[in-house]
């Protein structure tokens, strides 16, 4: 599979809040059901009906990579992801503290940091999300797909206005 420059594209509006992504992520990586092990987490504002899945953005200029005193975090250009070398990691959690998205986790059972590895090109969260709130797309396409979604809304609104006027 061609994975170069593919990214997770999250559309929170579509998320139903079911957290199946959390379940399959933990089972895939750790063989256990436990959302606190999941690399993707759904943040919720229940009284507003708002659910926002959060995962690693695989930043170009990744703060976790910059802050790591052991040089354990690097960019894998092949898979367009940031990865942790556990042989070098000293478990200081600086990366957890610095990540602007809270995407670097610390597993208190295994005493290790952990983050999304895009399931080496076959993200399970994407595979299981029937409503496609999480998609795996070419980085170049993200903007155009967003444009299309936004345009669809504009179109629907103008259509409704036209209907009302008619």
């Amino acid at each position, binding site marked *: 599979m061609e994975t170069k420059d593919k990214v997770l594209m999250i559309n929170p509006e579509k998320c139903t*809040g079911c957290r199946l992504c959390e379940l399959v992520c933990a*089972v895939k990586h750790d063989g256990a059901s436990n959302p606190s092990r999941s690399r993707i987490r759904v943040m919720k504002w229940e009284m*507003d009906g708002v659910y926002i899945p959060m995962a690693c953005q695989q930043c170009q200029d990744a703060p976790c990579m910059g802050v790591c005193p052991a040089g354990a975090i690097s960019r894998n250009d092949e898979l367009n992801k940031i990865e942790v070398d556990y042989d070098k990691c000293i478990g200081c959690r600086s990366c957890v503290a610095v990540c602007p998205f809270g995407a670097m986790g610390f597993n208190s059972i295994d005493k290790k940091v952990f983050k999304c590895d895009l399931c080496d090109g076959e993200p399970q969260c994407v595979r299981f999300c029937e*409503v496609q709130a999480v998609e795996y797309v070419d980085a170049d396409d993200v903007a155009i797909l967003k444009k299309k979604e936004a345009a669809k809304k504009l179109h629907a609104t103008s259509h409704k206005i036209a209907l009302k006027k008619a």
Partner: protein
Amino acid sequence: MALNRKIAYINLTTGDIEVKPIPLDVRRKFLGGRGLDAYLLLNHSEKGCDPLGPDNPLIVSGGILTATCASATARTHVMAKSPLTGLLGSCNMGGFFAPEMAWAGFHHLVIKGKAEKPSYIYIHNGEIEIRDAKNIWGKTTTDAQWAIRDELNDQEVKSLVCGPAGENLVAFANVMTGIKNAGGRTGMGAVMGSKNLKAIACRGTMDIDIAHPVEALEYNKRFIDQITSAKVNKTQGTLGTPMIWGATNSWGGVRTRNFQYNQCEYADDIEPERIDEICEETMGPYHMSGCFGCQVHCRAQYRIPSGPLKGKYDEGPEYTSQGAFGGEPDCTSAETVLVGNHLVDQYGMDNLEVGSIISWAMELYELGIITSEDTDGLDLRFGNDQALLEMVERICFRKGKVADALANGGIQASRIFGKNSFDYLIQVKGMSNLHSDERATPGLALNIATASRGSDHLRSRPAIDLYHLPEEVLQKIYGNPVPYNGKLSSEHTEYVGKPWQVFWQENCYMGVDCLGICKYHTTFLGATLPNFEDWPKVLYYNTGLEFTPEELWEIAERCNMIERLFNLREGLTRDDLEKGDMLNHRYFDEPTRRGAPDVVGRTIDKEKFVRMIDEFYEHKGLDKKGKPKTKTLKRLGLTNEPSHML
């Protein structure tokens, strides 16, 4: 692993807490969830115990598959003796509570006694604490949940709570989690209230090891594809359950004006498409949400579109709210349905019972059995939306003579109202029927008459009976995993074969309730959905336990028999109108007045109905009185109950 989840015995009077493992041989007999709850109830309650007394055990559980890598294992089950019926109390709800309880280390809680002051239970990674609920008592269901989160300083806590109705011991107060997930039926919220127990709060980060994770993941994908490809689930995922109400109303299967009609006219404003429109207008195009791990996402989100509560957020409404605040009281405004739904969610009451019982009171009011003097001037006529919503509030807070009587449930209220009020009450075993009218569907009528928790569709309803499936297809579904050599009929108006279908569905629904998965994931509304044949694999991949489909069938039979034993112990007798497997006389005497050509003019033929009950008992291994035969108990390994294995 899922199988190392424990059972906790919590005594609220003494504060004693005891934690025990659940032995494998118990699992092999009862799996978990509702089945094991029934076993625990039979073993931990005394005959004739007061449902609102300290000795009535409140049992809370997840299924054996809860929070594993199986599909939609979100269901929480709650059981106790019911303050509404005096028989089996049992309710089941989606949401996120049971998985959180499993991650916190527990599958079953048995709560006894009564706390000295308002309290709540906090369970956190194997630790159980009884805490003061002084800041939470009196709050609505959602306010209580958020207050607990704030108090514990943890926004990930999931709570199961009772609302003000539970605190006021309304006999049909429910338990709730999240915005609208409700363990609606049989008054489990009142049992919580009677124990001074406002909530059970859980937070867990403990692994549930999956026995065969790779296979479990792959099989889950297959399972989900099967479930989401069923057309009925696709429709559920866009319109939610309101689509069922709309479809049923179109042919004449919903009660209207209590039981006077079987179809609601002028219902355009509460049709599923209209409700969906309101959801879209208030919440945008993506307004469906899901319970834990479920891809059906049948729960709609909405804000009340107009009126004094405009802008209030809620979820649903389920079709039960269309029935309760729409068809039954003949109030055909979307706003009323959405507001009614919101009120019962906030107060913590069973929408089904509330709508049903108010509609009954409306009929009594129009008949003059209760008067405007009794209602303190409230004009309790059918179609009076304001009176309906006012009554919801009055019942929750027991305001006034009529509402206070209704809050004790229909049978108790009928004793207070006197005259022939009881004749108009559409109930079985003391629990009101949902909004459906079963006069044209004998199979469905048998289901509500014999359901273990009273008049109810989620215990044994052969809903696919309405699809007119070819007999070969019916044989294929109902002839597995144990053979059935009798006749089955594609006609929903027929009597033949229905007892077997009801028996089969009873076992099927017990199966999913033991596993802890949702009924939309089995042979309930979709004929192609997984059942006994598929469950052994899910169980094996996730827990490592091996079962055959036949073994699972037998477990379901056993668990249903335990519920039967409980009901018999508490006074169930076959033909008793208050505590039996019997329908209100109106099913036999009043023909339907509306609906499709094959529905209008129908009653249930009493003789044939009695024969259906006989046949149903025969399938279950009961004698003519509805008591288990000795050989049946022997076959199911239940000769020695209560056996106190746990």
